[in-house]
């Protein structure tokens, strides 16, 4: 069976589900961030596969570039927030962080 659009979409779907599982089940906040990165990569694979095989000319690749930029911004802000959480709670376990006030 020759590799076509569906193969890339399947890989992307599996990657997305793995990222979702990491987001839902991991306790470490940084592991949750890794799950988010996996999900964004899955979305990018979809964009670029549709550029190659679909009817969107170069718009898919342009969208993928914007996704990468937003992912970089998101990772920086999220890491800063996680560092502050660690400073305040001495832990980055997500279930432990359930208090907004001091």
């Amino acid at each position, binding site marked *: 069976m*020759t*590799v076509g*659009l*569906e193969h*890339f979409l399947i*890989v992307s*779907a*599996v*990657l*997305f*589900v*793995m*990222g979702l*599982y990491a987001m*839902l089940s*991991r*306790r*470490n906040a*940084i592991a949750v*961030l*890794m*799950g988010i*990165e*996996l999900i964004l990569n899955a979305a*990018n*694979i979809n964009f*670029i*596969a549709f*550029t*190659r*095989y*679909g*009817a969107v*000319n*170069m718009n898919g*690749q*342009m969208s*993928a*570039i*914007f996704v*990468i*930029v*937003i*992912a*970089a*911004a*998101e990772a*920086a*802000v999220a*890491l*800063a927030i996680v*560092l502050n959480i*660690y*400073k*305040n709670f001495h*832990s980055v*376990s997500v*279930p*432990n962080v359930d208090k907004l006030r*001091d």
Partner: protein
Amino acid sequence: MGAFDIVFYLFAAVTLASACVVVFSKNIVYSAFSLVFTFFGVAGLYVLLSADFLAVTQLLVYVGGILILLLFGVMLTNKIVNVDVRSGGSTKVPAFIISGTILVGLVAAIFQTHWISYKDVPWSRSPWNKDAVAGALTEFSKVQGSEGTATTIGKLFLTDYLLPFEVVSIVLLIALIGAAMIARREPDPAGDAPDSF
């Protein structure tokens, strides 16, 4: 089975296997390091999809930037004695059920959809639109050619995507300044330090 298929299966296997390690490894450091191989595998898939500029961008931004940030986060927050305080019930079973349901739905949707390609868009078959078809196809084959996609992407950034380009650069600048400010917030010398409880 051609060389393209073999390389595709190789990169897909690398991506998914290392993503498994990322998701299922107990040790967060192993997760962070196998994320490198996931990003490399995804970059290989981009190359297979003839997106050379994006593959290089993926390596530069993800492996060179985001992964280093994540590793700094791991090293700054991980204790040597990894005490995993179990508070609350396990979320693994509901997470597995939700993810599995979504995976089944996605795979079913992928196989049941009739995907249109650029060859069977309606306008490309209409006989009175031959010139537009030929133009679009030569543009596409130009993109596919040995020139690479960087020229096309650069032209698009300064024409059709000028406003999103400027907006996203401002967003990135503000996000990085904000991240630096949040991360470097010193305790207040007036006394009500945030870590005083």
